[in-house]
């Protein structure tokens, strides 16, 4: 009996010791890599933003002039939306919104929608999606040109009733074998444009000014 207790106790010590060593090593690595990882994530976001609003268009730090909120009434789902604001000489030149189309064929499609101050689209990019390879994934700018068809569009071009895929009587192409994916993207872009039109007035100030 005493012997059994001894074995149990020894096993507990061994297990406890290895847990401590494991936790120690993982914490140490986390500590060493944390800054670099945060940096990577920042740069990755910035790279996506730059592709839409290049550096010469604005003179502020996009990553600090950002508001985040969740507005199911405007965007149709509870996913948080970030709005990055681009200023030049204290004037708003463009915004980049990050809506999520929750009604993709296979889960959510995260988008970046860049809108010029006058309500015209600079462009749209897909940040992440799980649409079917070879069908719905043509929305990805690496796989197809479709996403570029938004550039220069606005709520009047095409007119609001045609902000749909062709199958639904609208202006935008769908893909052979994949209608749900482009339909979701078109809808999310339209809702973002409508949100911008309705809230333009609240977006013109920089975070710095409103805080100061």
């Amino acid at each position, binding site marked *: 009996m005493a012997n059994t207790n001894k074995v149990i106790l020894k*096993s507990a010590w*061994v297990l406890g010791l*290895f*847990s401590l060593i*494991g936790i120690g*090593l*993982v914490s140490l*690595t986390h500590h060493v890599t944390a800054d*670099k990882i945060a940096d990577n994530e920042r740069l990755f976001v910035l790279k996506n933003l730059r592709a839409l609003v290049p550096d010469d268009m604005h003179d502020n730090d996009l990553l600090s002039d950002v508001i985040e909120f969740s507005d199911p009434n405007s965007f149709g789902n509870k996913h948080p939306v970030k709005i990055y604001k681009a200023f030049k000489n204290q004037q708003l030149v463009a915004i980049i919104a990050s809506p999520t189309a929750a009604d993709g064929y296979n889960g959510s499609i995260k988008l970046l929608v860049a809108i010029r101050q006058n309500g015209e689209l600079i462009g749209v990019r897909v940040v992440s999606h799980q649409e079917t390879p*070879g069908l719905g994934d043509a929305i990805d700018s690496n796989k197809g040109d479709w996403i570029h068809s938004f550039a220069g569009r606005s709520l009047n071009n095409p007119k609001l009733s045609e902000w749909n895929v062709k199958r639904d009587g609208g202006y935008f192409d769908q893909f052979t074998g994949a209608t749900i994916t482009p339909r979701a993207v078109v809808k999310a872009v339209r809702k973002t444009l409508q949100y911008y039109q309705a809230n333009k007035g609240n977006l013109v100030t920089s975070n710095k000014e409103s805080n100061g």
Partner: protein
Amino acid sequence: MDSYKHILKNGLWINNQAFVALLGLCPLLAVSNTLINGLGLGLATTLTLILSNSIISLVRHYVGSEVRLPVFVLIIASIVTIIQLIMNAYFYELYLILGIFIPLIVTNCAIIGRAEAYASKNPVGASCIDGLAMGLGFTSALVVLGAAREIIGSGTLFANAHLMFGEAANNLTMVIIDDYEGFLLAILPPGAFIGLGLLIALKNIIDARQAKPSQQTVSMDFASKKA
């Protein structure tokens, strides 16, 4: 003790974890849609195997058989978490693609399998080589399957090589078939199953060819026994 040459041959061919033991199928099938993805996960798995086998072999005398499995899992999980953090820090874009599969290395039975079957019974040097051999065997399976699926599925090879080797590797991408429409089945999971099945069949054919002379003696043995 086995010779290192035998350990290497065992890991790469005779007891290949993917083709023979059929272990680690989840990451194998999920990530082998391009050569580079396969190579990335394969190397991460190899590194895990080398480290886990070496560490487990080092501590094998101090860990009682009652708690050996929890301790092995603890060691493997720590190693994988550390590799995940390092990849996240230094190979960020590759991490974005493989990210969700890296934690799955923990569940790759090949790793706990080698820990239990080999590292817990053998000295450090041999265990380390065994980890390397098993890892390279698994990597080669991922790379061959990845290359086959990439060529058949999208008509390219080495796509996204820059994720691993930096921007300089961008021109490494080869278009094998011009104006290829793509073959969806090869990229989707069923393509992985079919491809793996064909590769296993191919390996069995090669093994059968090589074994022919000895097989004849076996059948002669049977014949003589019957007689």
